[in-house]
C-alpha cells in the first residue's frame, strides 16, 4: 500500500502536506490514531496530523462544526444525538468497538467485592455511576440489564468522571459503576467485581465510536477525507494486529502507569463500522427517550 499514494489529487500542491487537525480525548480508544501518526501512515497519504486533546464528545462535535478540527473522535450516540438536532456531522470511519466478548472487554459494570449484586439483573433499581448521562454508557447498561431479565426503568444514575469511579465503588458511595479502561483494571485490582460487560452484552460486536467530520468537509474535501480514511483504517488494522505497540504508544499521550497499561484489555479496532449495531443503538435511544424521533443511521454513516 505504500506505493499507492501516487493517485494524489491536485490539492496537495507541490508535494506539500495537508495539515489536518484531529480532535481526540486522550484515552486508550484513540491509540490507533497516535500509533498511525508515529508509524507515518498519515504522512504516506500526504497528511500531517495534529492531535488536539478534547474533553468529550460534545466538545469534539462543536470543534468539528466550528471548523477547529477537520476530524474528531466521538462515540456514536453523540453523533446520533447531534444528527437528531440537525447538526451536519457524519462518520468517516470506525473509532473503536467492543471486543464483543463478555468477560474480556474494555469496559463493564463493577461492584464492591462484598456487594449483594451478582449479575446485570441485580443492578435494577440501584445507584450506578456513569460518566455521561443520556449517552452510550447508560443506554448500553440499560440494555444489558434488560437482556439479563432485570428492570432497567428505575435505576438511579450518578454522573461521575471515570477516574473517580474506582474510589466511589470501593467506598460504596454508589452501588456500581460503569467503567472503562484503565480504570476497569484499576478497580478490579482494588478488588471490585465485574457484574456486567454492557458493551459486549447489549449489542453484538457493537461499534462504540467513530472518527467523524462535517458533511461539508466530506463532500467538499472528498479526496482528503478519503486519504484520511485510508490512513486511519491502516492505523486501526495495525493497532489491532500489534497490541503491544498500541500499549506502548499510550505512554506518549496518557499518564497510565506502564504496569497497568500492560494488563488492560484493549478495545477492538475493526475494519468496518457495524451498521446494524449502530441502528440498534439508535433505536434504543428512541425507546429510552434520548431522542424523540427514529433515526436512519444511513444518514450518518459513510
Amino acid at each position, binding site marked *: 500500500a505504500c506505493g499507492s499514494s501516487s493517485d494524489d489529487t491536485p490539492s496537495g500542491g507541490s508535494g506539500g502536506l495537508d495539515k489536518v487537525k484531529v480532535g481526540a480525548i486522550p484515552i486508550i480508544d484513540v491509540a490507533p490514531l497516535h500509533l498511525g501518526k508515529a508509524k507515518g501512515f498519515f504522512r504516506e497519504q500526504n497528511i500531517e496530523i495534529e492531535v488536539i486533546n478534547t474533553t*468529550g464528545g*460534545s466538545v469534539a462535535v462543536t470543534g468539528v462544526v466550528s471548523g477547529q478540527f477537520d476530524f474528531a473522535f466521538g462515540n456514536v450516540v453523540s453523533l446520533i444525538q447531534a444528527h437528531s*438536532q440537525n447538526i451536519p456531522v457524519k462518520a468517516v470511519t470506525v473509532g473503536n468497538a467492543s471486543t464483543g466478548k463478555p468477560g474480556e472487554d474494555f469496559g463493564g459494570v463493577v461492584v464492591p467485592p462484598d456487594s449483594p449484586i451478582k449479575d446485570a439483573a441485580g443492578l435494577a433499581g440501584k445507584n450506578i455511576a456513569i460518566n455521561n448521562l*443520556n449517552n452510550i454508557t447508560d443506554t448500553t447498561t440499560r440494555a444489558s440489564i434488560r437482556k439479563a431479565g432485570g428492570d432497567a426503568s428505575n435505576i438511579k*444514575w450518578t454522573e461521575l468522571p471515570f477516574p*473517580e469511579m474506582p474510589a*466511589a465503588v470501593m467506598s460504596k458511595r454508589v452501588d456500581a459503576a460503569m467503567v472503562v479502561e484503565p480504570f476497569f483494571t484499576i478497580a478490579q485490582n482494588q478488588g471490585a467485581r465485574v457484574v456486567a460487560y454492557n458493551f459486549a452484552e447489549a449489542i453484538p460486536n457493537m461499534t462504540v465510536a467513530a472518527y467523524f467530520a462535517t458533511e461539508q468537509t466530506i463532500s467538499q474535501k472528498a479526496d482528503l477525507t478519503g486519504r484520511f480514511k485510508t490512513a486511519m483504517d491502516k492505523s486501526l488494522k495495525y493497532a489491532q494486529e500489534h497490541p503491544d505497540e498500541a500499549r506502548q504508544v499510550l505512554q506518549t499521550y496518557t499518564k497510565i502507569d506502564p504496569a497497568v497499561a500492560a494488563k488492560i484489555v484493549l478495545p477492538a479496532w475493526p475494519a468496518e463500522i457495524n451498521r446494524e449495531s449502530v441502528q440498534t443503538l439508535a433505536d434504543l435511544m428512541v425507546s429510552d427517550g434520548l431522542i424523540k424521533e427514529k433515526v436512519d443511521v444511513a444518514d450518518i454513516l459513510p
Partner: protein
Amino acid sequence: MSAHSTVRPGRRSPGAAVGTVARVLRWIAAVLGLPVALLALWWVLSADSETFYLPPLAEILAAFDDVWLRSDRLRADVLPSLLRLSAGFGLAVVLGVGLGVLIGSFRRVRAFCEPVLEFLRAVPPPVLVPVLMLFAGFGNTMKVLVVLSGCVWPILLNTVEGVRAVDEVLTDTCRCYGIRGPARLWHLVVRSASPQIVTGLRQALSVGIILMVISEMFAANNGLGFSIIQFQRTFAVTNMWTGILLLGLLGFLLAVLLRLFERRALHWYSGLRQFQRNDGHR
C-alpha cells in the same frame, strides 16, 4: 474643622413636581436604555442567523418559556441549585467571618495561617472537586462544599483585612468602657469590618454562582448548571442559551438582593463615606 452637612432642608422650588417626573423618566431611561438597545441589537443581528450555535434571539426567548416556566424545571432544577448555593454561601459566611475575625485579631495566628491560606485560595476550585469527593461523597454535601470552598476565600480574606483595620481609638474606647467578649466582637470588630465583609460577600456571590454550575458538572442529576450542561452535550443549543440567560438573570437578581442588604446594613458607611468625600476636611 467644622463639620458641614449637606442635609439641609430648604424651600421646594415651584417646578419640583415637574422636575421629579423628568428625573424619574431619566432614571428609567438610564437603567433600561442600554440593555434594551443591546437586546434589540442582538435580536436584529441574530434574526436570520444560520449558525447552528447562535440561534436567533427570538427563538431563544420563545423557548425560554417552554424550557423553564412551563416545565417542572424551576422546582426540579433551579430550586435545588439555589438551595445548594445558599447553603454553601451561608456556610462560607459563617466560616469566613468566624475564621476571619480569629485570624485578623491575632497577629501570630495570621502569620501562621497566611501562606497556607494564600496557597489554598490559589488552587482553582474545579481542581479541588475530586479531593472533596473523597471526603464528602458526591451528594448535595459535596456540591455545597464546592460552593463553600470557593466562596470562603473572598469573605475570609476581606474579613481579615477589615478586622486588622479596626480603629485603635475605638479599640481603646472599648477597653476603657469594659466592652468585652461578645459585645466587643459584635459592636466593635464585626461592625467595623462590615464594609469589607460585604465587599467579600459580593465577590463570593459571583464565585458561588460559578461554582454552583461547576459542582453540577460532577455527580449531579439535577440543577441549573446540570441542565445547561446536558443541553450543551445533547446539542440542544437554543435550550442551552435560555439556561445561560437564566443564569445571568439569577446572578443579577442575587446581586441586587445583596445590594439591598448592603444598603440596609451599611447605610451608616455610605453616609460616612459621602460625608468624607463631599466636605469632611480633617
